[in-house]
């Protein structure tokens, strides 16, 4: 902005109308036409050879383009393929032909153009001057004049009531996007701290939905994924309630009993017959952790290689996870099936701001 409009001495300028025309007018400098370039090729023999190569590439591009059309028309995919043929194979074949033809056509076209430019056009440096981006003073003056005329004719400057009610009318529309931010809510409340597990809720296998007795997981080294009974179609509940049951040989399991200000977080008394239940949701970013190695008792997360020691309260022994996998208290219900003794006593899954 080389010029700052001075405050006009007459009437006050109305918002939205242009500034009054500046006093000084820039002089227009007309430049002479640039020098003519020679259209002659730099080296006639070399140019002749380059011309032939470029022409050959363009013919190749033409043929490949024709091949694309022929391939599209000629190779049947979808329901038109002969019965018994494999539709995946048909699509593969079609893709191969179409892609190859298109690649050859575009590559030949581009290569030909580049050889043209590099070997046939004269190698002369051309300067291109940069000018101010603003319009000419005449154009700007004309625009300001027309704008002022339009403003006067529409009487927007003369009728403040219309002008102000118009601004008023647009104000709610301008604020509307801020109100839409409400759709980011509602706030999760305490839902991140609880799952649907509760005392007496049976664990059923994911997929077959069978409840399990402790004897069903009799072999040490067994592992199975279970979900709360009756929640197989509740994706919101399952997102937090997935649990893995792991069976240990006697003496292998050492879950330390840990309290956090009165709340028990881990404990051997939550295991049944050397079966321990851990949340299947990684405490790093929530991937399902189920890569259980029965020889080392490692539970490995496939996303970022967080590794938990299942024999010692699922403590983190490697990787970015910050907390051990929460343990689910187990009990055996009246019918002899494995069930939760309560909900998890700490939030499952990744940490969150208010977790504490």
């Amino acid at each position: 902005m080389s010029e700052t409009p001075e405050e006009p001495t007459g009437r006050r300028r109305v918002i939205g109308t242009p500034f009054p025309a500046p006093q000084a007018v820039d002089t227009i400098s007309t430049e002479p036409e640039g020098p003519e370039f020679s259209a002659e090729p730099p080296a006639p023999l070399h140019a002749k050879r380059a011309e032939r190569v470029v022409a050959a590439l363009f013919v190749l591009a033409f043929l490949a383009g024709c091949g694309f059309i022929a391939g599209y028309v000629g190779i049947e995919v979808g329901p038109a393929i002969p019965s018994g043929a494999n539709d995946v194979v048909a699509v593969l074949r079609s893709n191969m032909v179409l892609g190859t033809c298109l690649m050859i056509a575009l590559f030949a076209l581009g290569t030909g153009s580049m050889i043209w430019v590099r070997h046939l056009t004269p190698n002369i440096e051309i300067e291109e001057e940069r000018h101010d981006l603003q319009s000419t003073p005449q154009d700007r003056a004309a625009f300001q004049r027309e704008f002022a005329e339009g403003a006067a004719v529409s009487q927007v400057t003369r009728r403040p009531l219309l002008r102000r009610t118009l601004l008023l009318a647009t104000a709610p529309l301008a604020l509307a996007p801020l109100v839409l931010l409400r759709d980011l809510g509602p706030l999760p409340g305490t839902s991140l701290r609880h799952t649907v597990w509760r005392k007496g809720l049976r664990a059923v296998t994911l997929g077959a939905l069978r409840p399990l007795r402790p004897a069903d997981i009799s072999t040490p080294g067994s592992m199975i994924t279970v979900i709360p009974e009756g929640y197989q179609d509740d994706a919101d509940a399952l997102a937090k309630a997935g649990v893995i049951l792991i069976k240990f040989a006697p003496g292998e399991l050492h879950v330390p009993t840990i309290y956090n200000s009165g709340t028990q977080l881990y404990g051997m008394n939550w295991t049944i017959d050397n079966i321990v239940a851990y949340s299947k949701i990684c405490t790093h970013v929530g991937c399902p952790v189920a890569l259980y190695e029965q020889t080392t008792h490692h539970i490995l997360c496939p996303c970022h290689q967080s590794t938990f020691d299942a024999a010692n309260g699922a403590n983190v022994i490697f990787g970015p996870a910050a907390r051990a996998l929460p343990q689910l208290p187990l009990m055996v219900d009246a019918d002899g099936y494995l069930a939760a003794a309560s909900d998890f006593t700490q939030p499952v899954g990744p940490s969150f701001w208010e977790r504490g």
Partner: protein
Amino acid sequence: MSSIISRRRHPAAGYAAVAGGLVLAGALYSAFSAGGASAAAPDQNSTQVAQGHSLFIESCSTCHGLDAQGTTQAPSLVGAGAAAVYFQMSTGRMPARELGAEEDRKPTSFTTQQIYAIAAYIASIGGGPAIPTPAQISTTGANTALGEELFSTNCAQCHGFAGAGGALTYGKYAPPLTASTPAQIYTAMLTGPEAMPVFGDGTVTPAEKRDIIAYIVDTRAETNPGGFSLGRTGTTTEGLLAWIGGLGFLVLIAMWLTAKRRDHLKAESEQKS
């Protein structure tokens, strides 16, 4: 015997054979399911056990001990069961070539009959899970959809959603299932070889095991839409090559385009002008 041979073309012979097979399969199945995980070996034939014992002394006892009691190098096989022997030996993992993080699949040098003999010997000293019968691993009428669900829940985290295998900790890995026979898949689930957890008949029932096998076998038979398969992740390998190789190629072309002309061309053009 000759009467059976002479009547084998009788119209009812086929039905009789099928019925007989079904009765036999049912009897075998009930024998195994009744015993559960601690079912006895399929064949307690004493000659087979004796043959298996001598083979064991010859090929296995160096690491596993003369009485299969285990040593510092290898675990005890008492109670490992015939199924574990069948899996380890039919996939060529045992006898081990060397002690590493994990044994690789390799061609086995034992005949099926020898493997069954060693399996019978191991079963005779401590029971354990048995080798499945053909009826137990038949995928006829299996629920492939349920198999897919069970596979994604229990197997896919290590073996990949299409059974292509994957890495574990400290050099261990979940092998690809591309070459596994139904009997090997079945015995692997039953016994949990190496780092793999056990999926006994209590957690994954025999019928569900058949469903899982059906899913693995069906998935393998599907045409692979990717040219170079990367665990059946589609055309990812080609895309990766196109991005890395193709972008590098484009960079080279850009360097060529912006490079200065060769000197003789420049000299010629200067002479001309």
